[in-house]
């Protein structure tokens, strides 16, 4: 099944590693910041590294807010890309950045006591049962995380992880999916998740 896969060029991201991971699965991938091109895709990826305010500034400068908000095809936000999908982030100057509001939710700085931040490395993820995005992935499978902010578990949480506190490892609202970890850097488990997403 030849799918049209577009990675949104957020201008600040780990785009190559996401593109390579999809190519390893046999997909043909386009990186674009053109609204018409993004809208025409079968599947859309929203990658991101860095800070929420810088990423939102880049998305706004490219005029992509309404384009992304209007997408109806399956769309996967990765790491910061997931955080941009909720309504607001406490990261940024003054502790506030308005995000894309593809689902309600707030991104907050992790409160982990004596543990180190960023939360960096491989940690175990527990998906909800019968969740398509995690088909074939057992509870307790390791994924690779790098972040200091998170969304606490709530009604849109698909999977959880724990690092000093429970937090959302994955989110969903209708066609919008987000993962806090990096599937493109999570070995076989990450490849399985990307393949599941491509099959939606």
């Amino acid at each position, binding site marked *: 099944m030849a799918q049209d896969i577009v990675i949104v060029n957020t201008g*600040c991201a*780990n*785009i*190559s*590693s996401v593109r*390579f*991971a999809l*190519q*390893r699965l046999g997909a043909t991938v386009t990186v674009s910041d053109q609204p018409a091109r993004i809208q025409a895709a079968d599947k859309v990826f929203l990658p991101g*590294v*860095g*800070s929420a305010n*810088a990423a939102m500034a880049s998305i706004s400068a490219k005029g992509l807010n309404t384009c992304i908000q209007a997408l109806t095809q399956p769309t996967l936000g990765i790491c*910061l890309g997931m955080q941009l999908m909720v309504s607001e982030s406490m990261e940024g100057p003054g502790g506030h950045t308005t995000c894309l509001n593809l689902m309600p939710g707030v991104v907050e700085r992790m409160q982990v006591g004596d543990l*180190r*931040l*960023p*939360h*960096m*490395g*491989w*940690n*175990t993820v527990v998906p909800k049962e019968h969740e398509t995005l995690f088909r074939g992935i057992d509870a307790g499978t*390791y994924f*690779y995380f*790098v*972040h*200091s902010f998170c969304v606490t578990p709530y009604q849109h949480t698909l999977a959880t992880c*724990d*690092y000093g506190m429970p937090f959302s490892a994955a989110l969903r609202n209708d066609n919008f999916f987000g993962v806090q970890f*990096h599937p*493109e*850097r*999570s*070995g*076989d488990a*990450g*490849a399985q998740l990307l393949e599941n997403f491509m099959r939606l």
Partner: protein
Amino acid sequence: MLARRIIPCLDVRDGVVVKGVKFRNHEIVGDIVPLAERYAQEGADELVFYDITASSDQRTVDKSWVSRIAEVIDIPFCVAGGIKTVEDAGKILEMGADKISVNSPALLNPRLITELHDTFGQQCVVVGIDSFFDEKTGAYQVHQFTGDEARTQVTSWQTADWVQEVQQRGAGEIVLNCMNQDGVRSGYDIVQLQNIRKLCQVPLIASGGAGEMQHFADVFTQADVDGALAASVFHKAVIAIPELKHWLLGQGISIRQ
């Protein structure tokens, strides 16, 4: 539970992987991509590539191998060596590296750490520190230009002070290379790592001294480091990664399998 990381380090020189003893006498170990692929398949949690010539001989080094690695590797990797500017770092991250590590250039220009943090985010910014214990003075001192013995020099920084400075400037992770132990496989410098751990609120990676599986258990349980980096024991097949991880799990250490 967050797993402790096992991190093979590949020293790269002119596009091939090399390894010396105490930073000298480099011998060729093999091609970069097949070695990287092998370690990923064997269960390495992350890879570090140090371009060891880059900082010391003032040239811009061909980094096209970074994207060749990114194409085939599905675990995170970090590139170190010769990253002197935000532009240098940006190119390497664009090629698909997950993190960049700065060492000598950060000592020459500490503002570089802040600039990297502000541009790419804290999670991308690793600071490598080459720390040498001077028996005469009893002090741990930071060295620079360690890729080239003729240019290696001691800096005015005591290791503990530099560790605090780089965190204030935005480092997201610290790799502490204990030079006295490098390549001699007699164990990590537990005492030094314990002391630095108390000062380090970001992930801390131990480097230098791994010789047997017990050394990994010791550094995780006694110095509470987030990851253990090693080179020669993996390159020379003294320790196999699957066996090491299985054994560490048996020791009750949180390890990804």
